[in-house]
């Protein structure tokens, strides 16, 4: 900023160009943020006010009681708790087992390791619908449907995408540290637990967040395997929220939707660095 040259990435901008860019970007942000604002605004109105003509931008009287109402009308606390433990267990399982495989692919020499890594990559390209039906039949045979087992157990067998992401990270860690462990007579387990895990916390955080977003938002898996409402995660619970009403109570539905996404928004607020990092790493193979 102190330099004499003021040229940006695309060279000098004329004032008029600068104004246009600012207007477009800040205007665009308003457009992007508006849906969330509208969700909040609707959630704090009365049923009468949401149907009022002309419409109001801001609730004339803030209805916090809507938020009490939704927890009475539906077991939202239960749904949230289900989503939380389910996400926590699966994210931890996927990230840990994937990092083990990633460590092996990045650091350990073995016959066929390249071929196996190729297999990891190729499974990323297969749409989940192909494996869906045999998996469902397998879990039905095992008597697991109606429980969380079909959703949780596969998480303990790593995910191809997370292996890829963590391997990229491990390749960037200096090998000198491995050598030091070897000279000290340490095993590969020492190397993994003492060197790799402590050094790869940012990669763990990034991978965990990406996995968490997809688990939290996933509807398809719970829809297929769970039938008892008390077991629903928030995605499926919210999808069925309106079933108990005659006409859609939009103010309550928006309040419930906001509650459903609030944990992700709070997490994003504290860990946005890892969110964006994860996207960049996953895109860098392009």
């Amino acid at each position, binding site marked *: 900023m102190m330099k004499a040259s*003021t*040229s*940006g*990435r*695309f*060279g000098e*901008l004329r004032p008029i160009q600068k104004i246009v*860019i600012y207007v477009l*970007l800040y205007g665009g942000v308003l457009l*992007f*943020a508006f*849906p*969330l604002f509208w*969700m909040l605004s609707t959630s704090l109105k009365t049923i009468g006010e*949401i149907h009022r*003509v002309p*419409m109001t931008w801001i609730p004339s009287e803030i209805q916090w009681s809507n938020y009490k109402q939704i927890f009475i009308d539906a077991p939202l606390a239960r749904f949230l708790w289900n989503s939380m433990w389910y996400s926590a267990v699966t994210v931890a399982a996927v990230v840990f087992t994937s990092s*083990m*495989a990633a460590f*092996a*692919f990045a650091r350990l020499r*073995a016959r066929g390791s390249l071929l*196996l890594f190729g*297999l990891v990559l190729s*499974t990323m390209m*297969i*749409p*989940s*619908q192909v*494996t869906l*039906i*045999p998996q*469902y*039949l397998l879990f039905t045979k095992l008597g697991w449907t109606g429980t969380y087992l079909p959703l949780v157990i*596969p998480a*303990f*067998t*790593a995910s191809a995408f997370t*292996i890829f992401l963590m391997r990229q990270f491990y390749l960037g860690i200096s090998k000198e540290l491995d050598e030091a462990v070897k000279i000290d007579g340490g095993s*590969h387990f020492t190397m993994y637990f003492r060197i790799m895990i402590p050094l790869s916390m940012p990669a763990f955080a990034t991978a965990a967040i990406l996995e968490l977003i997809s688990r939290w*938002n996933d*509807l*398809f898996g719970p829809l*297929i395997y769970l039938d008892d409402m008390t077991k629903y995660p928030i995605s499926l619970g*919210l*999808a069925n929220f309106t079933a108990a009403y005659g006409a859609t109570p*939009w103010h309550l539905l*928006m309040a419930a*939707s906001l509650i*459903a*996404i609030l944990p*992700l928004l709070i997490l*994003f607020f504290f860990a946005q660095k890892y*969110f*964006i990092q994860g*996207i*960049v790493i996953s*895109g*860098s193979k*392009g």
Partner: protein
Amino acid sequence: MRKLSLAMKREERSFWVFIAPWFIGFICFTGGPILASLLLSFTEYNVISSPKFAGISNYSTLFGDRLFYKSLSVTLYYSVMAVPFTVVTSLIIATLLNNKIKGQSLLRTLYYAPSIISGVAVSFLWSWLLNPQFGVVNSVLYDWFGIQGPGWFTSPDTVVPSMVLMQLTASGSTMVIFLAALQSLPKDLYEAASLEGASAFVKFRKITVPLISPVILFNTIISMIGSLQIFTEAYVITKGGPDWNSYFYVYYLFDTAFKQFRMGYASAQAWILFLLIFALTLVSLWGSKKFVHYEYDSK
């Protein structure tokens, strides 16, 4: 064959221990099911009685199934609109963000944030925004411009375009990938072009687009694969309607497998989808050869 040294044997054993969870999962939940799915697609199986070999009858029935063509055409229609929409809007935002502007990282965060929330909550949100009677969009259209807004999700003609419009706030991750690519471009080319008096648009067309063409291709393919698998939005907002006009491919597959329990037929549908995705990916890779430049390596 040479005998492996003790250290190498130990290393190989460790390798297998470390990849064991993935490998077991690969056999049980990926590799095995792929084979099973292929076999099932040649059978008739309703879960209760045992599978009956049916030859290629699932596939031949599928190619005469009007609902199959309907769901396929609705899905392709969605994909053809959603992919360019997502790629172009996110590239425009990323390009604008890549200028020297105040609050760049804050803006990047704000543009990205809406995309982390997807699925059910966002589907309800858009269904409310675009509600024909009381939605904010139609209210604004009527109050400010006197225009009677369309039926959006409730009208056969506008249901798919409405689903495309929904993707506007979901394109955050595509935008972040573009921005990362733009930030790694060499500055000197732009400076040289500026000296020769090239306009911002010319620089974008002649320098930026060719240099980031591999990233454009990557984002196009990822977005295409995702768009062909669209399900949640239709399940939550329209239940496939009105009049089957948002009955997407995966929705049909879901109904075949988990409402009608025709597992063989659904497996055939899954394989057709897989082949379609595979073919379209190959076509994109092949067709883009002329336009994609790999000589500049951004890594």
